[in-house]
């Protein structure tokens, strides 16, 4: 993709995917033989050179990697909170529910950023992304606060956008 | 100590089987097709955990490959069914 400078081009995408496949191979088989690993590395990079298209992933930089590293523990904490929330609802005799679908606009512009945002929303307490139209996200919320206006819905995405804006732009 | 570990692992296997029973009940009862598909999705995730436990119990690492393939197939199956329900297939 020639137009946007923020995303990685074809060469960068090939290197990223090739490294990812090699890493998965090493983790999956536990291979330690350098001959074995080098053959797979050549194969992985060759396959990626044929099939991978550029312009999807952001160009990696130090700040982005730092934010991505900080995002993972944040997500783990959110997932644990989500589960304690679900567990406390499920074991009560009558399930406390106040469900509804709310709409919120996101500031993220790239497709991959919106995808990660939607998936993160699905894994966090009481929210499930139902539909994305352009920049508008429709979220099923198990316990709607207030009347489900824009302000309340902003609370859901604000925490993620802080990180994802830097990572995916 | 070894006995305690055995008991804990056995108890977790029993709890996981109870989860399978609940999800299977929803799979049989579910009023709409979407309910059944959601139950199927949950069933496969629980089954992957059970297969991983069995791999540890029998000491056969190859079982984890089975779990991975099972997960991939169930993911593709659920997405295909979702597309069908939407009317896009």
């Amino acid at each position, binding site marked *: 993709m020639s137009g946007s400078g923020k995303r990685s081009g074809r060469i960068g995408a090939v290197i990223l995917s090739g490294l990812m496949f090699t890493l998965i191979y090493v983790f999956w088989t536990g291979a330690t033989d350098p001959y074995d690993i080098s053959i797979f590395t050549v194969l992985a990079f060759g396959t990626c050179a044929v099939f991978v298209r550029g312009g999807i992933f952001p160009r990696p930089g130090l700040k982005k990697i730092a934010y991505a590293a900080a995002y993972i523990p944040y997500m783990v904490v959110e997932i644990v909170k989500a589960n304690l929330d679900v567990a406390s609802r499920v074991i009560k005799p009558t399930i406390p529910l106040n469900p509804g679908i709310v709409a919120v606009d996101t500031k993220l512009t790239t497709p991959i950023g919106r*995808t990660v945002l939607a998936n993160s929303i699905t894994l966090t307490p009481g929210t499930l992304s139902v539909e994305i139209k352009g920049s508008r996200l429709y979220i099923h919320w198990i316990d709607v606060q207030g009347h489900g206006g824009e302000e309340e819905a902003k609370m859901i995405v604000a925490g993620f956008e802080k990180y994802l804006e830097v990572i995916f732009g | 100590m070894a006995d305690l570990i055995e008991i804990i692992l056995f108890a977790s296997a029993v709890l996981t089987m109870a989860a399978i029973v609940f*999800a299977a009940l929803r799979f049989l009862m579910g009023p709409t097709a979407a309910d059944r598909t959601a139950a199927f999705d949950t069933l496969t995730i629980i089954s992957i955990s059970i297969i991983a436990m069995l791999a540890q119990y029998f000491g056969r690492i190859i079982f984890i490959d089975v779990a991975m393939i099972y997960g991939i197939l169930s993911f593709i199956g659920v997405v295909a069914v979702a597309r069908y329900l939407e009317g896009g297939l």
Partner: protein
Amino acid sequence: MEILRLAGAIIVFIGSVFLFLGGLGLLRMPDVYNRIQAGTKATTLGSMCVFIGLGIYHPALLSRMLVLLAFIVITNPISSHALARAAHFAGVKLVKGSVCDRLEVEEAEDAASGSPDPIGNDTINDDRPAGDLGGGG
């Protein structure tokens, strides 16, 4: 060494408790969206804990368990999102007593005003140049 095995077994037990609660939530919740929520979240953390616990219990399995864990964490929300979207377009209503359904309301407004989808199209807006359908270079 024994302590490590005990810790692994306890983590597996915690994971199986979450799996159990996920199954129970799937059975008890009143409508599709709530069921998907309970089913997805609880089983994600449950299987994460089971994999990590088995990896600690049996260190030879740890690296494979990490790949399996990453796979589950990435694909589980995608399939549940696809299911929720499909349920909505298949016409499954929210449970009685729900507060609001903005998606339903805004779709009705779009249909009434006649403008076909003012924001974008149904899919995520991909700003590829026209004619580039993906695939190879």
